């Protein structure tokens, strides 16, 4: 297992990154044109009402002060109040986050289940028809925008064949699995195409590596060679990729949640942007950044568990 000091070092690295992330987020949101007050009040409000709203949001303070307030509040878990939803941002996000995390995990799982076995099949039959077929299908998957995959799945599997509900979110766990199958699948298709490509390549490479040849020369059984020597080594780079594609996955949920009417943070992000909901955009972007960092951290840990060479900090 990775040592505690490795974990500690890895956690420390996050701090400067996060300060920068906070600066980015803050600046970005301040740069949004249009007045959140106008966005909030829509057309009907009077100028005095707008002024009041601005004051309540602290938008009449100088920028550095606003930033300090932002940092301080963020650290205490207070992300402000959503303009659009008139509730504490933290509360809203916490309420919506599980859905997105569920969707994310679900699609990662689907992607792995889809790509893993097929990558093995392809790598063990390099350039044979099976391999070519698998790669072609996934190549097409790679060229499809997530929203389009979503639409196709929605039209064919839900609207036409009625195998799955059209959208929305279930109430129980199983219900959720059923409801989120299509959104998860449409995100997973792209991710699995990437995983397949990478896993196939690294399997081929590992199968050819000296230590695998050496393992065979030792007369080890096929099962041991495959699991202990091939799979584990091939996974090292795939895990990194999986970690890196979490960003993709998040982007994917942004779109699918909209297409499939899934009430997660992805859709909320789009809504918040269209509504110029400063605090909510801020909170959500931060949430995404935290999510991605957590995933990066986890992949690092898994990787260093897999690969002892990475354990020295």
């Amino acid at each position, binding site marked *: 297992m990775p040592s505690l000091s490795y974990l500690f070092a890895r956690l420390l*690295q996050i701090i*400067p*990154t*996060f300060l*920068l*992330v906070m600066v*980015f987020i803050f600046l*970005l*949101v301040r*740069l*949004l*044109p249009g007045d959140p007050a106008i966005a909030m009040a829509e057309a009907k409000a009077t100028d005095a009402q707008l002024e009041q709203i601005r004051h309540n949001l602290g938008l009449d303070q100088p920028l550095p002060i606003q930033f300090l307030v932002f940092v301080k509040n963020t650290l205490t878990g207070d992300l402000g109040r959503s303009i659009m939803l008139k509730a504490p941002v933290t509360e809203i996000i916490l309420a919506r986050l599980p859905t997105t995390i569920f969707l994310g995990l679900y699609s990662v799982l689907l992607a792995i289940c889809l790509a893993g076995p097929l990558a093995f099949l392809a790598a063990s039959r390099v350039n044979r028809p099976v391999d070519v077929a698998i790669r072609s299908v996934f*190549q*097409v998957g*790679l*060229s*499809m*925008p*997530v*929203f*389009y995959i979503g*639409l*196709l799945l*929605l*039209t064919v599997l839900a*609207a*036409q064949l009625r195998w799955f509900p059209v959208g929305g979110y279930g109430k129980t766990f199983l219900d959720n699995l059923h409801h989120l199958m299509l959104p998860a699948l449409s995100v997973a298709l792209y991710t699995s195409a990437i995983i397949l490509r990478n896993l196939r390549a690294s399997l081929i490479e590992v199968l050819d590596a000296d230590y695998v040849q050496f393992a065979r020369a030792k007369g080890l059984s096929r099962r041991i060679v495959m699991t202990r020597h091939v799979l584990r080594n091939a996974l090292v780079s795939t895990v990194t990729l999986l970690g*890196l594609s*979490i*960003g*993709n*996955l*998040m*982007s994917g949920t*942004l*779109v699918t949640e*909209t297409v499939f009417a899934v009430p997660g943070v992805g859709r909320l*992000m*789009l809504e918040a*942007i269209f509504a*110029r909901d400063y605090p909510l*955009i801020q909170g*959500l*972007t931060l949430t*995404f*950044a935290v999510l*991605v*960092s957590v995933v*990066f951290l986890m992949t690092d840990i898994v990787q260093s568990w897999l690969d002892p060479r990475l354990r020295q900090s």
Partner: protein
Amino acid sequence: MSMVLQSPVRKMGRVSAFLGRAFSRPSFVIGFAILALSIALALFPQFLAPYDPLAFDLGAIQQGPSLAHPFGTDNFGRDVLSRVIWAYRVDMQMAFFATIFALVIGVTVGAFVGYYGGIADTIFGRCVDAIITFPFLVLVIAIVAVLGPGLVNMYVAITAVNWVYYARLTRAEIMAQKANDYAAAGRVLGYSDRRIIFRHLLPNATSPIIVYWMTDMALAILLGSSLGYLGLGAQPPAAEWGVLIAEGRNFLLTAWWMSLMPGIAIVLTGLGFSLVGDALADLLRPKGR
């Protein structure tokens, strides 16, 4: 200057040998054919599209594919084929402009940072960490929100995020090349850093960058059409595949051709780029020692 005396025949020979190898691969041939067609459509839609992509024909609303309208018509009676063809112009442009500036900026930054290392590299590393901590689309959407929707702003937004990926790649590649003795030889020969970076290291680092660029252009189309679909990219009535799909979104079951045809165009073009990219990755891979 030193190129002048080089025998052009030899150079040509090399190029044709490379092409020969390339064209003996079915995947490259298919990808290349798709891209060539896409570029032709993007350059000359006015000659190739049968109808005006914007003209309403209230007498021919949502007609299915027929001889007159091979891809059918949309809810304003516009010819879907013509709109898909005109969309090539927008989407191919997107593929190019959304990536080229990121490429130029990223490669330059990456080359310098990779060569000099040190504090600039540390700062760069932190920035990269911070930027890749945001999901790509989240950041792009947020920047588009800053700048307002539209194609040019979309290019700016994508470039603002995307250069990091090129820079990262170039940096790694330059660092790897820098470890080669020819770079040290350049220093011993008293060459300037600029010469070493741009004449020696960078030319040797281009293959993976070009390969990445190819896939990135495919990604740019996917991203651009996603933004168009969400209403943040190209704007209606302009024809762009994402926008066309969004327009057809309401008629998935009744007028399926409205969204299916542009969908096929996206997939095909993306396929073209990735096939060519994959083939190049194989072809440009340095020959074993």
